[in-house]
């Protein structure tokens, strides 16, 4: 039997994947190859490290006499066991010498107990009084001393632990380094070095005092603000700091936000969830005064645009592969593009999408193929378009483009792992007329969809300034994806005015560096 499904089915099923999705997949190929390279390099260095370690261990084993026994419990220097009885001093100071050379000096009236004493740990509890510990480092044994509210971890040192009251313990380090733990400490612990002193109280605070040049010792302040480096922030504060975007990222997000304006829609506020990244209104946007620096930038931008317009009349050679349009590496993209947002009326939710688009133009054999990378906001979600394919039709100074499809991703920095989502509702024709004649920056700024215009100009700079292309590209990609981007030297966002100004200012800041 034979099935007649072949051609019929193929025709019926159509060609599921579009250029945009394939473009996204290509981006993914590059990313995954880079990841694999990194992983491989890591594996190699790990293998190398492991190999050297094993080799080292073998050599060490070969040249080290095998002791054949586990490290023993500490004893007194006399050889007698080190136990609770030895940690009592009644009316006179008492010195206790241990088998590893360490020494404890107990003040009169001190009482303590040895709770653990084996090859790995020596744990003491100071129940009363004050003791000086002179610990010989390198014993391979962890010393801990509990005294009231504090626990002292010894890292090879000479120090005193004094139980002033059942609720208060003082630790005074003469040499070396100890870590004091206690609930009363700001972060539950503090590390003390030579000259430092800590007082740990049950509910209160601890302080560490560095003996200054004067040699005087200040009383423990109530605040854990200590001499020397500042105390580390409380955990909650640290977490908050870690989550606060870096300045560069803030700027990038802001720039995307301000470029993120659709003048047609009234519900801009819905999309603008961050209070500090509000979009400028239409009125103040284009008319902001240009400062001296910005007029320089304006001139540069106009020069670039003029250059681009000149290029437009003689398109560079394109690398074309069997009718498939490719992004060129060498070719310029001599056009700026304007687009009007024309959301799919069938998808009211999608109407909130705002394009802050930057365009990647590539000359192909005939019409232009266009890649777009954008950031959109849908309610609290920020989405980046990985690549949308469009077609540009050029002729007599006019350019039109229509978006054919799009792929969305949730930015990596927000969600850990980006997920590709195809949104068919993004499909739709966007039609717009481009500049007639040579484009200028003023022309760009005067347009409605300024984000797009500015991005077009940005792309021109990208292609015209070869060596800086990467920097701008990185910046633009960062802006578009909401990722960290390098902050330009002087990124006064408002200087050029408006959305395109912000975008251009940021990009030119890098371009003109």
């Amino acid at each position: 039997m034979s099935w007649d499904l072949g051609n019929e089915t193929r025709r019926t099923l159509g060609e599921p994947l579009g250029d945009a999705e394939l473009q996204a997949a290509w981006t993914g190929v590059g990313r995954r190859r880079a990841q694999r390279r990194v992983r491989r390099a890591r594996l190699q260095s790990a293998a190398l490290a492991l190999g050297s370690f094993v080799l080292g261990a073998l050599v060490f084993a070969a040249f080290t006499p095998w002791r054949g026994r586990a490290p023993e419990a500490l004893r007194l220097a006399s050889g007698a066991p080190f136990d609770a009885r030895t940690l009592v001093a009644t009316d006179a100071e008492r010195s206790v010498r241990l088998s590893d050379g360490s020494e404890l000096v107990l003040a009169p009236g001190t009482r303590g107990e040895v709770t653990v004493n084996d090859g790995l740990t020596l744990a003491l509890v100071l129940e009363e009084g004050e003791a000086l510990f002179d610990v010989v480092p390198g014993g391979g044994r962890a010393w801990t001393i509990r005294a009231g509210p504090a626990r002292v971890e010894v890292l090879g040192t000479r120090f005193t632990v004094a139980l002033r009251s059942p609720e208060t313990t003082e630790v005074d380090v003469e040499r070396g380094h100890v870590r004091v733990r206690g609930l009363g400490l700001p972060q539950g612990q503090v590390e003390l070095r030579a000259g430092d002193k800590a007082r740990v109280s049950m509910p209160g605070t601890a302080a560490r005092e560095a003996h200054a040049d004067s040699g005087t010792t200040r009383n423990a302040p109530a605040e854990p603000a200590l001499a020397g480096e500042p105390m580390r922030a409380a955990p909650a504060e640290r977490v908050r700091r870690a989550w606060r975007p870096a300045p560069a990222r803030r700027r990038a997000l802001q720039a995307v936000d301000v470029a993120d304006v659709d003048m047609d829609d009234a519900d801009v506020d819905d999309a603008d969830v961050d209070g500090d990244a509000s979009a400028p209104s239409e009125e103040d946007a284009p008319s902001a005064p240009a400062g001296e620096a910005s007029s320089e930038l304006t001139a540069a931008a106009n020069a670039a645009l003029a250059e681009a317009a000149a290029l437009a009349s003689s398109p560079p050679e394109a690398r074309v592969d069997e009718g498939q349009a490719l992004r060129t590496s060498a070719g310029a993209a001599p056009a700026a593009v304007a687009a009007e947002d024309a959301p799919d009326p069938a998808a009211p939710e999608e109407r909130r999408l705002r394009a802050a688009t930057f365009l990647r133009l590539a000359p192909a054999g005939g019409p232009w193929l266009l890649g777009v990378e954008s950031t959109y906001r849908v309610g609290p979600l920020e989405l980046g378009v990985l690549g949308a394919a469009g077609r540009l039709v050029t002729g007599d100074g006019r350019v039109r483009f229509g978006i054919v499809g799009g792929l969305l991703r949730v930015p990596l920095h927000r969600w850990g792992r980006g997920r590709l989502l195809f949104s068919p509702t993004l499909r739709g024709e966007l039609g717009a007329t481009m500049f007639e004649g040579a484009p200028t920056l003023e022309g760009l700024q005067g347009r409605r969809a300024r984000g797009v215009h500015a991005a077009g100009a940005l792309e021109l700079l990208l292609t015209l300034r070869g060596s800086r292309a990467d920097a701008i590209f990185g910046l633009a990609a960062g802006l578009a994806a909401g990722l960290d981007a390098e902050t330009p030297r002087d990124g006064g966002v408002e200087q050029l005015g408006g959305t395109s100004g912000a975008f251009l200012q940021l990009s030119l800041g890098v371009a003109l560096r």
Partner: protein
Amino acid sequence: MEHLAVPDDAELVRRVLAGDRWAEEALYWRHAARLGNLAARLLRDRDAALDVVQDTFVQAFEGLGRLRDPERVGGWLRQITVHQVHRRLRRRALRRRLGLLPRGTEKVLAPAGRAAMETSTELRLVEAALREIGADARLCWCLRFVEGYRVAEVAEATGLSESTVKRRLRDAERRVRQHVTSAGEIASGEDAP
């Protein structure tokens, strides 16, 4: 625009091996759509197909040096793609057996756009039948009857021998025919007494 000489596959492979990034991209664009659409039709899943395309090219660029006959890079890429599809089908079948694939989440051979009612019904029936046969048989059947490959090409793409392919095709055909016939009888009220 002036016409540029188009490098053939072997030339592209040579340039990729020499480190030409443009050639990599050209190779990708020359084959990605065909492979992606093949994977999409075989898997009935657009996202999975894109994954397959990615996996295929990541694997291909890494193993390109081992390709003996650069002229045949197209067939080689198709092999990798089919292998990737096969892996996913097997995984899917396993998940289905383990009950990890919720009902109704599986994609069916849904026709794109407007199709005759008859065609779309038939596609659904075929899909239901294919779901019950093994990954190998399903793959062979789709390559042969959906993609229209010859038996020898199916064998090459799947890495199976021609006789195995024929056996798989026979099995698959029997199941599909049974399924479509019985469903057709039910649909037209011709239940056996």
